């Protein structure tokens, strides 16, 4: 790839993490069970990806106990929103160039 292209953010560029970010973009908050069901992943897998996004400060996780059951509420941070915006712009650019390349 040409050097003047911005690299796609590797934190977001994975199926599960991208899906998490897109789902959170459309919600004010979401819980663990909802994300697990919508993305169709195991608890362990989802936890790993959520931790990665949290480390990058793209998401915020709030844990609490309700009737002795753990409840995790997840939301997108401003940093995460900006990163996702940049990611989608770069992705759009890559796809546009790829399609132009195919035409030539």
């Amino acid at each position, binding site marked *: 790839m040409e050097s003047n292209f911005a690299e796609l953010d590797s934190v977001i560029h*994975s199926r599960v993490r*991208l899906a998490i970010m*897109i789902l959170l973009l459309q*919600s004010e908050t979401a819980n663990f069970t*909802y994300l697990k069901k919508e993305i169709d992943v195991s608890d362990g897998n989802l936890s790993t990806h959520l931790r990665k996004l949290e480390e990058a400060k793209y998401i915020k996780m709030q844990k609490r106990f309700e009737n002795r059951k753990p409840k995790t509420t997840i939301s997108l941070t401003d940093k995460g929103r900006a990163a996702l915006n940049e990611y989608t712009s770069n992705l759009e650019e890559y796809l546009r160039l790829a399609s132009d390349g195919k035409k030539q």
Partner: protein
Amino acid sequence: MDQITNEQALEVIKEMIERTKRKQNYAGFYHLLWGVLISLAIVAMYILIKFEMYDLIGFSWAFFGIGGAIVSVIYSKRTYEKQGSIQYPDLGINSIWMGLMIAMFLVAFVFPILKAYEWYIVYVMVSLLLGAANFSTGILLKQKMPIINGILWWIGSIFLLILENQVAFMGVFVLLLIVNNVIPGIYLYSLARKQNGK
């Protein structure tokens, strides 16, 4: 390990947007709740007028209004627990109807106590507020029916201002309530059930 190609990334984005777009979570709850509460407030008002207890009319509105507020808060909390996410259109709809509650409290309880206007103006103002709530809900849901109901409430409010006969006045208001709140409430409920595959 979980890395994807750019084309696959685009597919993931499309799939996740489609997943949430397909679902309409709002099931007409606020339409039906307010339809029922206002009907009860009308019955209570009728009884209070019959027994010439005019001072209690404002309190009956406040009672049903506060009752509605409590039910609405419990409902929105439970809905979130069940759905697992608060999506922006739902948040918008909740805010509209919660805001309506505060405005109704002022219009139907506080202002009449302050003798700001006569009792029948309460119904005109309530019609205007319900029109705004219906119209905004329709815009957020991209559903024509609540938009039309909002406009009908506004047109109805003009009729209520013109009507002088008390029975005709209440008749028109009840009709507006059934057509613009109860019927769309039932429609939105069945639509949400259908879209969520229940």
